[in-house]
């Protein structure tokens, strides 16, 4: 049995996560990768942006995740007339007490579902900035801590652009990962018709994990070991996005941090107490792609940020242990190739 330094049990973690995953998959069928990524982001203390066409189950995934964990859930339907105070809360004059009383907004919950986030004005979208990054809300000079765990699961529709406000870079950078659900497989869709035909599948969902359990899991994930070569690998990958000719804007240092935290969570989900380059590779596209801005030329060439990240992953040499550099069977010329690919 593998144990972590802080005493959290790896078997407990996988068992808890497995229960949550099974619960969510009752609702979202045939999309294990999306579910796994959502859980990874939850354990890595990140926020998830679900981006896809309408009707594929974006909100359903967010809701299923929220319901499977026994914690406070708030749902905000972002509309053009939504105000920042609707999200963060507002101070109201209490005549009896002759004082301002703070009415918390929708953000004061452990899982916040922001539906159609790009429909709100940039001003309202920006209201989430502080809470997402610092897990606190400041109103009228007064700072209010948000509960733990805290996770924003936002959805947006990338096709319908009329009456929407694309998320600013600063906002996008605060989401740890972006996931597309995609259309279900015909078989899964058929099964969905049978199962979900009559009643909403969410109705049958019961919490399978407590919030304090999730907090413990998050603590355990923090203890996952990331070897120096893997850290360097993450830095190399992110660094490559900054000098790639097809990208106008590369990924930020925050992206490196998110990538590493997500890799830790993925390692824990895989039952390991150490992260692998494989974890980093698997998460590179969901964690990095939504932060990158392709150049006009690349857009003309129909090059997407996902393609660029995949290309970078393929070109960046996998790290070897320091004492074995150049001698590992993965490629004796790693050091040399590394210089070459970094120079691109």
């Amino acid at each position, binding site marked *: 049995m593998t144990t972590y330094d802080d005493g959290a049990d790896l078997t407990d973690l996988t068992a808890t996560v497995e229960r949550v995953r099974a619960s969510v998959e009752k609702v979202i069928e045939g999309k294990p990768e999306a579910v796994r990524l959502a859980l990874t982001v939850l354990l890595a203390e990140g926020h998830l942006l679900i981006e896809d066409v309408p009707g594929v189950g974006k909100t359903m995934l967010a809701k299923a995740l929220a319901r499977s964990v026994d914690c406070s859930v708030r749902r905000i339907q972002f509309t053009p007339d939504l105000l920042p105070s609707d999200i963060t809360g507002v101070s109201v004059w209490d005549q009896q007490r002759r004082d301002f009383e703070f009415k918390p907004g929708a953000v004061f919950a452990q899982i916040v579902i922001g539906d159609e986030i790009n429909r709100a004005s940039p001003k309202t979208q920006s209201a989430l900035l502080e809470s997402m990054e610092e897990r606190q809300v400041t109103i009228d000079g007064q700072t209010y801590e948000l509960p733990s765990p805290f996770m924003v699961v936002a959805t947006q529709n990338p096709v319908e652009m009329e009456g929407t406000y694309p998320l600013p870079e600063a906002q996008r950078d605060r989401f740890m990962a972006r996931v597309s659900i995609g259309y279900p497989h015909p078989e899964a869709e058929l099964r969905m018709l049978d199962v979900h035909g009559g009643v909403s599948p969410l109705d049958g969902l019961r919490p399978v994990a407590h919030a304090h359990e999730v907090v413990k899991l998050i603590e355990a994930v923090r203890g996952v*070991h*990331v*070897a120096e*070569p*893997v850290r360097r690998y993450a830095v190399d990958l992110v660094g490559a996005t900054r000098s790639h000719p097809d990208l106008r804007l590369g990924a930020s240092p925050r992206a490196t941090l998110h990538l590493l935290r997500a890799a830790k969570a993925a390692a824990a989900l895989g039952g*390991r*107490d*150490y*992260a*692998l*380059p*494989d974890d980093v*590779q698997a998460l590179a596209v969901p964690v990095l792609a939504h932060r990158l801005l392709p150049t006009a030329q690349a857009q003309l060439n129909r090059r997407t940020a996902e393609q660029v990240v995949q290309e970078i*992953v*393929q*070109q*960046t*040499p*996998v*790290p*070897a*242990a320091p*004492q*074995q550099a*150049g*001698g*590992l*069977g*993965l*490629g*004796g*010329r*790693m050091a*040399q*190739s590394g210089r070459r690919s970094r120079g691109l």
Partner: protein
Amino acid sequence: MSGRTRLALCAWAATLMTACALLPLVSPATWIVQVALLLAVQSAVGAAARRVPLARPLTVAAQVLVTLVLLTLVFARQQAPAGLVPGPEAFRHLAGLVRQGAEDVGRYTTPAPLTDGIRLLLVAGVLLIGLIVDALAVTLRSAATAGLPLLALYSVAAGLADGGAGWLWFLLAAAGYLMLLLAEGRDRLSQWGRVFTGAVRSPRGERGSAVAPVRTGRRIGVVALGVALVVPLALPGMRHGLLDPSRTGAGHGDGGTISAVNPLVSLRDSLNVDEDRTVLTLRTDTRDTSDLYVRIVSLDDFDGTTWKPSQRHIVAVPDTLPAPAGLSADVPRTEITTTISAADWYAQDWLPMPYPPSGVRIRGSWRYEPVGMTLVGDHGQTTRGLTYQVRSLQVLPTTEQLATAPDPAPALVREYTKVPRTLPADVAATARRVTEGAGNHYEQAVKLQNWFAFDGGFQYDTQVEVGTGPQAISRFLRDKRGFCVHFSFAMAAMARTLGIPARVAVGFAPGTVQGDGTIAVGLKDAHAWPELYFEGVGWTRFEPTPTRGTTPSYTRSEEPGAPLPDPAVPSAQASTAPSAAPSATAGCPPELRRLQECPTPSAQPVAGPSDDGPRPFTIAAAALAALVVLLLPLSPLLWRRRVRSVRLGAHGRGERDAVPHTLAVWQELTNTAWDFGIRPEESQTPRQAAARLVRLGRLDPVAAASVHRVAGAVEQALYAPRPRPVAGLAADVRRVTEGLRSTASRGTRLRALLAPRSATRLTWAFAARWAAVRSRVAALRPVLRKPSAHGPSRPEG
């Protein structure tokens, strides 16, 4: 003309110019024309193949093929289908010619006749060198390294040639090589743009000081060649130089020594020639010519292995030569005059003369060596075509004079009885045994001579090698086969062990009297004999070689008082010779026995290996070389096996050893996969590499599980905080290897075994080290280089 064509032309010319060094070795020199033509065809094929363009190995292969066809056409036309296609018959014929050529080379002295065998050796050798030069300089664009094959060719020629105009051939060969280098340099420069062949003019119209690089190259080349030729003349060498202590005051050149060519080398060749050519023609005023030995030089320095002439002072030739050392007035003598004509082709540094000479009349530049009483050519003077007159003494001592000779001067005894410590003890022991019962040095000498010539059961055989090493004499005494060199060396050495001053004379035995009264001395009369010193008589000739020369009258048993074996009585010494036939030879007169014309009951058996069988060192070296040649193609296999056993071998069990062992095992796994054609991908993680290996290697589930187990261990080793040792990884690798082998084709399996692809890592490692060294040197260069005065940052004026 394109750069490559010029380069190919230069390679052709360089090879041909170097091949000119072979010209003095063979006569006539018509072969060089043939070589030039064939070489031109070979170069043209190379140029055409490069123009196509073919891959480099294919270019060389095409040239090899065409060369084979050319050789077949010229040398084995009758044996080849259509006169061109080299088949097995043609190859057999060519191999026969090569064998014959090798024999001819061993048989003839230079200049050798141009036999078919020698012609094939010359043509094929030069074509081979030409092919290598062309491949290196033009195909591989590395003209500098093409100097090595050219040097090899020149060295062979220079090693075989006996002096002459060596500087001319050197100049030709060096000029050819320099031309090749210049052509390559020019070609390389031209890739940067047009090559300026004249001096550049500055914008102000003054003639600039910068000279075109090509012209500078030419000048440097010419100067270097000139220096290479001139400087050795002025520099003092180990010998023959200004500082040579043996050099005499008057005159110059190499008059200080007389050891330029070992006369023994050519002696055996002379004895083995098919056609007996006349070397010297003698006309003398004595009637008894049986004692007319013509001496060239005496060898008095014995190092245990061979005899050679000592370095002696030489002086100008006096009108009357001094009396020979040790000859007292009461010894009977007659003075004879001999006119000697040397053949046009006979070039000898020493003057052949009867011994002891008392006066010489000769033209040319000669110098006199008083101790050996020989004349040595100065300034390259040889006997070629000379006619000269020699007055000499025929000394006829009585046996009594020899038997009662007093002890010589101690200094002389010391010098001429010197034997090295390495001389085997059995030489001295045999000498003592043979001369048992002899009362004085003279009797000892006669007993020795007769033992060799008559009673010892020795056989005259010119096919035996001269022999090297301290054991040569010992071997000869055991095998009892040899020719004059063996007999004279052995007798002189044995005489020295008995305290008799001895040396070996080299020259000619008495020739054949012709109808016109002259005496013709042929190549086959070349001879060596011992000279022993007796006080009052001087250096006295003995003749131990059976069937050769004549026994001196003062050693014959007919002489009264000489305690020599009685022909009528079976020889007592015969018992010392194991294979001798005393009973049969008993009734035979000694002179006939010496000539080995007595009937023998059985042929002399060959007792074991000949005198000059290959030495153990030679055998060991040859075996080692053969082993290396055999092992060379197997070296990748052996290297791979060694590396595998090291990687999968024993290792420590601790956590500290886990990481290196796991990584070594993983490297072995990926290298094995590479050997089977699955190239490692650098951007793959261990588990991706494992999945790819399973997929491409079509591994069965068991082997696949092994691959993943090893990959998992590698992940742990590389990325886990505390890697744990995993057992059974080596077995996993073996399982995977088996799996890969079972799905691979036979060709792939064979290649993985004999030419493993992963051996490329060796090249990579070497390249990485080389790059490291270069970068280190490059880092040092700015420190070493002086800052340029014409740097762009410096303001003008």
